């Protein structure tokens, strides 16, 4: 097990270095000589990599929480419609203030919290009904989003679509703030980890083992939704990380949350750093939406591991 942790940390360090080096121009991080290269490395690439790491980690943490909260391994951060409401908020912002740089993030943040408040109305329901309510809410927000996109002037469409597929190039939230959120979220998760482990046995068994399930569910829903809102605000809707990374980490580190949560927080970050590095490099000087690459990189790795474990 120690070897796996060591491998994970080495992979993170390696991917961060790779991310620093790659992009439109290859720069060796250890021998950057002129001011321009240093500026690219430390003022552009490094903060962006930290943002990618934090956002990926937050999404994976939210995914792990939603899967336990809903008792469903197919759950992911966007399952209860928070991403849909955030996207609707972002596009609404774009519609009214198309010239503003930060309006999509602000709109996404407001939209995400509207989605969270809507979801909280259903927090007292059991996992299955809550999931159903979430899926219906997600469908509602998708419809609202489609309506907004239909009304959006043509020049705003490209910006809206690239944001909706995940965009780390225009994050308005500073990387240190996101890393702090990553650390706080992970700490909160670890504090709840024993109760989360018991929740894996189902609500009745968890209660019989002394967990106040109602309170835990409310806290978990709020925490997971808030983390999702922050990640979406920072980088748009990036799929796949929150669904698959927790499963991948369970395969590698077992099911107990004192291992799954830190491993997911690191593994999610790792995947997004890797995906963002590829997104900046593959068709440079243009960029691919990072959400496409999370799936392209993550799916084969996950399926391979699944087959080997089987």
């Amino acid at each position: 097990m120690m070897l796996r942790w060591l491998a994970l940390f080495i992979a993170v360090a390696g991917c961060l270095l790779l991310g620093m080096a790659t992009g439109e121009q290859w720069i060796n991080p250890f021998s950057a000589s002129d001011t321009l290269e240093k500026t690219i490395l430390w003022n552009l690439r490094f903060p962006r990599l930290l943002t990618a790491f934090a956002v990926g980690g937050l999404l994976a943490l939210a995914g792990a929480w939603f899967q336990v909260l809903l008792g469903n391994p197919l759950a992911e951060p966007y399952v209860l419609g928070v991403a849909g409401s955030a996207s609707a908020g972002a596009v609404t912002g774009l519609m009214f203030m198309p010239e503003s740089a930060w309006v999509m993030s602000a709109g996404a943040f407001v939209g995400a919290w509207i989605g969270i408040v809507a979801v909280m109305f259903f927090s007292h329901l059991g996992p299955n009904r809550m999931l159903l309510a979430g899926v219906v809410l997600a469908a509602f927000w998708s419809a609202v989003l489609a309506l907004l996109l239909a009304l959006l002037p043509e020049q705003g469409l490209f910006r809206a679509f690239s944001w909706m597929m995940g965009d780390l190039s225009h994050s308005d939230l500073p990387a240190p703030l996101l890393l702090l959120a990553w650390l706080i979220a992970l700490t909160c998760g670890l504090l709840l980890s024993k109760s989360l482990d018991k929740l894996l046995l189902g609500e009745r068994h968890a209660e019989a083992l002394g967990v106040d399930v109602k309170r835990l569910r409310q806290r978990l829903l709020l925490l997971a939704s808030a983390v999702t809102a922050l990640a979406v605000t920072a980088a748009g809707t990036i799929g796949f990380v929150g669904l698959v990374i927790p499963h991948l980490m369970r395969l590698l580190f077992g099911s107990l949350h004192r291992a799954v949560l830190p491993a997911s927080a690191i593994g999610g970050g790792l995947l997004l750093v890797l995906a963002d590095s590829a997104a900046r490099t593959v068709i440079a000087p243009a960029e691919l939406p990072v959400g496409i690459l999370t799936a392209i990189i993550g799916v084969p790795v996950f399926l391979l591991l699944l087959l080997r474990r089987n």
Partner: protein
Amino acid sequence: MDRLMNLSDLTVERGGHTLLSGLSCQFNAGEVVVVLGPNGAGKSSLLLAMAGLIPATGTIELAGQPLASYGRDELSRSIAWQGDLPPTEFGLTVSQRLKLAAGEDAKTIGSTAATMDIAPLLQRPLGELSSGERQRTELAALMLRNTPIWLLDEPTAHLDLKHQIHCINMLKAQRERGRAIITVLHDLQQAMAIADHLILIDGKGGAEYGEAKRLFASERLTKLFDAPVITQGAVLVPDYGEMK
């Protein structure tokens, strides 16, 4: 005998339907109470109410205090509940499942697993086990809970004959150690082997509590289950008609 739990004029409802009403009884240390009744009568719901997992009207007292005055954590230190098999989606292993039950006191996991014949399965995910193996895991988890009261919902379900006997003997041993055991059973012979008292729930809202010796009678059980129960030697058995 120490009185651990007391029910007074208890009524249990599910979905607006009264399952049983007016049940009064007490549970003492070192005693086994078997709950009998037809499907859907409210046996499992009675156990859930006693564990504080569903609401009920009337009075449930634990060590002289109302059950509602206990926090969830406090309750879990007094009452262990065994019910449905837990889900297996997230890959918990047998060892991890047992650690969740044992809490800080994980030293006895190996010996308890050996007692329930699951020592070779400790590193296997629950999802790879048969229902019988999972049931034995749940019984081992129960044994790791050092609580004075056990509430068991069909502890012998899914078990083969050898492990059914093993389970009943384990319950007898736990009774000798002073545990109060309240268990739902469907097998009359198993019930007769361990019951000190019975709770009979008829599925029409009625519930009766009394000494096992008095309540084990073929006419009474025939009426309870709406199925023929006959005396064969010293035991009561279902009447399956002519044997081949």
